[in-house]
């Protein structure tokens, strides 16, 4: 089976800082992969590379065989990669419904001319989109909040809405950037079920950046560990938990040296 996403020797440099260096890893269809590492290890930078916000200095990123660098972020979304953001980035002046509807825009058969003419084809399409959005909102129990301004949702719901919005683009790969941040243990528990559920229901691959080890270890099939932009380990949760390099990266070694000093 060919990989959904393949990063091969990807590096990016900001001025003198090498934020990601020689990163190679891949995601298989239907796989749930975790990307972990201490603060500033370059996890979000990896997301920004995959989604075209940054261009890699070297290396290749392939999504379904298509080379990602050089595409604009919105084109990459059309290829089938959707994401959420570490610091929630909803469309703050729009309602819950419209936040999700925005993601439907790229599936429109009809463009600007139809929105002016407002003929039968346009009305049918709008009705169809409305149904799809409501279907999706209902799955996540947000249907009754459709007209609510998104900023008046509670924090956990805002995080969930961001996931719903990303799913509305009908992605093949979903990137989740610290979805559990700021959640309480119950919410985290729910989130774990939710991610599992999404993966199975929508048949997609998920790449998860997360600090909460319980969440990562609980649901990921495979985990990659970054430190200073370099992958120091990769394996199943059990392998990662017992990997001395990983333990050193998180806790430091007994002699006070970091793993790279060894």
């Amino acid at each position: 089976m060919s990989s959904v996403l393949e990063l091969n020797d990807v590096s990016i440099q900001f001025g003198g800082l090498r934020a990601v260096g020689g990163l190679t890893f891949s995601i298989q269809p239907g796989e749930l992969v975790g990307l972990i590492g201490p603060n500033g290890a370059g996890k979000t930078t990896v997301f920004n590379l995959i989604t075209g916000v940054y261009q890699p200095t070297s290396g290749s990123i392939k999504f379904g065989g298509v080379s990602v660098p050089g595409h604009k972020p919105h084109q990459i979304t059309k290829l089938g990669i959707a994401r959420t953001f570490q610091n929630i980035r909803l469309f703050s002046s729009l309602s819950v419904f419209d936040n999700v509807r925005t993601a439907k825009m790229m599936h429109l058969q009809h463009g600007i001319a139809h929105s002016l003419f407002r003929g039968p084809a346009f009305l049918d399409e709008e009705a169809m989109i409305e149904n799809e959005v409501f279907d999706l909102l209902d799955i996540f129990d947000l249907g009754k909040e459709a007209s609510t301004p998104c900023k008046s949702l509670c924090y956990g719901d805002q995080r969930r809405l961001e996931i719903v919005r990303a799913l509305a683009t009908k992605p093949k790969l979903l990137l989740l950037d610290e979805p559990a941040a700021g959640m309480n243990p119950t919410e985290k528990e729910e989130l774990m079920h939710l991610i599992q559920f999404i993966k199975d229901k929508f048949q997609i691959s998920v790449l998860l950046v997360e600090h909460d080890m319980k969440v990562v270890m609980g649901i990921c099939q495979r985990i990659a560990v970054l430190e200073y932009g370099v992958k120091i380990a990769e394996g199943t949760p059990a392998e990662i938990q017992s990997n001395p390099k990983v333990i050193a990266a998180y806790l430091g070694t007994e002699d006070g040296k970091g793993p790279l000093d060894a």
Partner: protein
Amino acid sequence: MQLLLKYRTQAFLLLALLVSFVVSQASDNIDGYVLQIMLVAGINIILAVSLNLVNGHTGQFSLGHAGFMGVGAYMSAAVSVEMGPSILGLLGGPSTLSHGVTFVIALLVGGLCAAVCGWMVGVPSLRLRGDYLAIVTLGFNEIIRVVFQNTSSSGPFGGALGMRGIPDYSTFFWVFGIAAICIYVVASMVNSTYGRGFLAVRDDEVASESMGVNTVRYKVVAFVLGAFFAGLAGGLYAHLFGAIDPKGFGFLKSVDIIIMVILGGMGSTLGVVVAAIGLTALNEQLRDAEKFRMIVFSILLIVMMIVRPQGLLPVTFEKKRRKSA
């Protein structure tokens, strides 16, 4: 009945066009002064609604709308003054029809030239945001003004003196017909799935891109369409007063339009229309106190920003409930 409900937006547009035609036929019965103020209000509606597309809906703060208006005014006036006679001749002499055709051609030329300028400003400005964009659009406005001001005084644009003797084609029908079309275009475009993209760009460009929204395309569409309608408004203005000069399309005119948008509520078409009418009336009231006019307007601007930045009639959330399928 159901059909009417389904296509109510179009029905409103037709009704508005019909009403402006009827009123136009009866406009001889309206006091000349009152009629002129109404026409100015109509032109201001077009300016404010089109600027609102750029500043309000798309969140790209432009300080140069009067520049596009100026391009439209000059170009359309040039068409009807320089080419008008030959167009009239082709259509078999002056008649309601031939005047109408000349005017439509003049307006379209003005609007399209303004749209091209809007594109020229919009494309390089894509890399800028917020206050930098505002200053650059102000700069383009000034450059457009300076260019017209420095044309030859014997040429078609008349340099600093401007143009005179532009035929008075702007009737109630043309002004309010175009105002209705402008409102229809902006409102129906924004109120569609396609149009939510404008609002998304305003709220968060990075998130928009990650939702598959082509932010560049939206910004360009907003700039071009906004400039097109500003150009039409300029054409109507030129053919209402019969004389134009470069000073009328400077920074202060842009500020006038911005005040309408801010007062009405950025992104609120209804609010902006109401504000355009209200401010036109206020402007007339202050005509005898010209010295105080800008002081009043500037205080209005400051107080609005501090007390009610969302405008007097801000956008309300549309109630969405699942239709029983």
